[in-house]
């Protein structure tokens, strides 16, 4: 129950926030607004699923934003300049992402380097590679990119749920099953609890860590594909800073940054809260966009403080030491 509390609080904050918004703006509670939520945050949600695995395992992945940028540029060049079929380009870029994630995971495990700094190097590398390919914003005009518009699901009430929103929901569903109902998911939780105990229990740590970062990079690649659908373009500077939004969504969703605890549903709620803040600011019209950052920062603080209080109650005092990084 105590573990569920952060997720319940997040959900409650979302529900209350949504109701307050609906009271203030009569048209807020409509399928249109909700569908927009899902569409605008589709790429963010897909990365957040991968980040949830990484953070529950006690790691962090700063490279995801750059991987999205790299993917969009790669797709634009492969499809528009090299005349590749979009499907072949998707396959190639996802394989590159998988290898990239595997390399980061291997560096983290075999060289015992902190994930923070390894993925920081990965962030520079992926962004640099994207810049090397092209610094311009390249429009993608492949027929597939216009065809997917036809796959939009029309909801009652005028809401339109495009394919990218469906992909995001599907990734959340699959990610939830993978995290909560498979051996791999259990191993991820165990790793976040204690790497040493996990190894002593007989879990093969190396492949688990490598797979976690492969999954994160793969989903970042998928998110890049979705992002290219969303903007119909490839640009090396796209998705700058997305890693921070993603980490914020995961933390607001109640996942412990020290690893070992968290739920996929919480991440979804964290994502929706960020969407709610943005939508509220759009609806209000007088508030400036920088309030998004301040409110997100405040929510981050509030949720972390809440977790800290819960952890303090769960454990005997004086087990956590100042300045300690797990």
């Amino acid at each position, binding site marked *: 129950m105590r573990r569920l509390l952060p997720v319940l609080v997040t959900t409650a904050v979302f529900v209350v926030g949504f109701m307050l918004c609906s009271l203030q703006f009569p048209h807020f509670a409509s399928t249109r607004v909700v569908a927009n939520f899902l569409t605008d945050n589709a790429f963010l949600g897909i990365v957040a699923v991968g980040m949830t695995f990484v953070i529950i395992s006690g790691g*962090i992945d700063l490279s995801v934003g750059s991987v999205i940028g790299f993917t969009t540029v790669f797709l634009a060049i492969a499809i528009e300049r090299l005349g590749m079929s979009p499907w072949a380009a998707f396959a190639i870029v996802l394989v590159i992402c998988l290898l990239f994630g595997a390399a980061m995971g291997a*560096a983290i495990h*075999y*060289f*015992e*380097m*902190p994930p*923070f*700094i*390894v993925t*920081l*190097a*990965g*962030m*520079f*590398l992926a*962004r*640099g*590679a994207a*810049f*090397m390919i092209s*610094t311009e914003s390249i429009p993608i005009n492949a027929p597939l990119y216009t065809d997917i518009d036809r796959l939009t699901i029309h909801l009652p009430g005028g809401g339109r749920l495009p394919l990218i929103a469906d992909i995001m929901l599907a990734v959340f569903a699959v990610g939830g099953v993978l995290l909560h109902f498979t051996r791999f998911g259990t191993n991820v939780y165990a790793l976040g609890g204690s790497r040493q105990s996990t190894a002593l229990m007989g879990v093969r740590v190396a492949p688990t860590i490598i797979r976690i970062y492969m999954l994160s990079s793969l989903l970042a690649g998928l998110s890049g594909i979705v992002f290219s659908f969303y903007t119909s373009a490839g640009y*090396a500077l796209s998705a700058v800073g997305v890693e*921070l939004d993603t*980490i*914020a969504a995961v*933390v607001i969703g109640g996942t412990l*940054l*020290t690893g070992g605890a968290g739920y996929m549903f919480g991440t979804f709620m964290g994502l929706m809260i960020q969407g709610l803040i943005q939508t509220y600011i759009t609806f209000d019209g007088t508030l*400036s966009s*920088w*309030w*998004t*950052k*301040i409110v*997100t*920062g*405040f929510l*981050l*603080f509030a949720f*972390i*403080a809440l977790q*800290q209080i819960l952890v303090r109650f769960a454990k005997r005092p004086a087990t*956590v*030491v*100042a*300045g*300690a*990084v*797990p």
Partner: protein
Amino acid sequence: MTVMSFRMPRTGTPQILAFLAILLADRLVSPQFFDLRLQDGRLFGSLVDVFNRGAPVALLSLGMVLVIATRGIDLSVGAVMAIAGAVAASLVHGHSVAFALAAALGVGLLCGLWNGFLVAVLRIQPIVATLILMVAGRGIAQLITEGRIVTFSSASLAWFGNGSVLGVPTPVAITLGMLLLTLLLVRGTALGVLIEATGANARASELAGIGTSAVTIAAYAWCGLCAGVAGVISAADILGADANNAGLWLELDAILAVVIGGTSLFGGRFSLILAVLGALTIQAMNTGILLSGYRPELNLVVKAVVVIAVLLLQSPRLAGLGIWLNRKRTT
């Protein structure tokens, strides 16, 4: 302190060699690299440029190295730079420069204290604790500038970015001054050892009677102050405060500088001078790539390769190999 400065060349050989090698490489791509000329009482030249452009990151790395030595990390320094720059640029209209400056540095210090409070008192992981200010900080800076780029024309504030002291550009002089001040505070007293003890083993230090909370807060506060100074310099440099772009991603450069300077991210022993040298090495690389006429986009890739190389050299697995090789050589 004298012992430190004696020991320094020996412990920092790889870093000094790397810096010199990059300077030589810069000389190869640009024959005029070491040329210096005096104009209007200020030194000019590519080498001066390396020091001048490297000053903000060098300042950040001065604070960052202390935070990392306590086994922490400060992601918010770039945002704090933006806040301090915004405060200085906004207040200089209608107030004295001294007041604007004091307010900017005060705000930097306050940001550092907030981070320190979260880490040491609320015991939040440093990455997350400072992430809060990293996310919210730019919003706060935009709140101060009201979303505009606030420009100013105060010559005395601009001096901090473009002026010179005895021919040396002001940012370089300030950085040198801050380095000496930090050395005095940290190595002239027991504070440095206390920071190292806190980072090496906070539990044991606490039991040994060290006020680890106070030490940690002090490290973050100093880091915030250094970020404030860097923010004023970069605002003065462009005669304006840009809340969106001031200090953007510089936190990563500062962390990189500290890591290149040989301070482990797992806390413990640290070197201020080598951290500053790390910052200058990064800048020398940037300048070299610009001078060479290669696309500046290459910069990130080169940086990534350098991070990976430095990390591999520091990794516990390879350290074992190094000890083994050393033993073979000595026997």
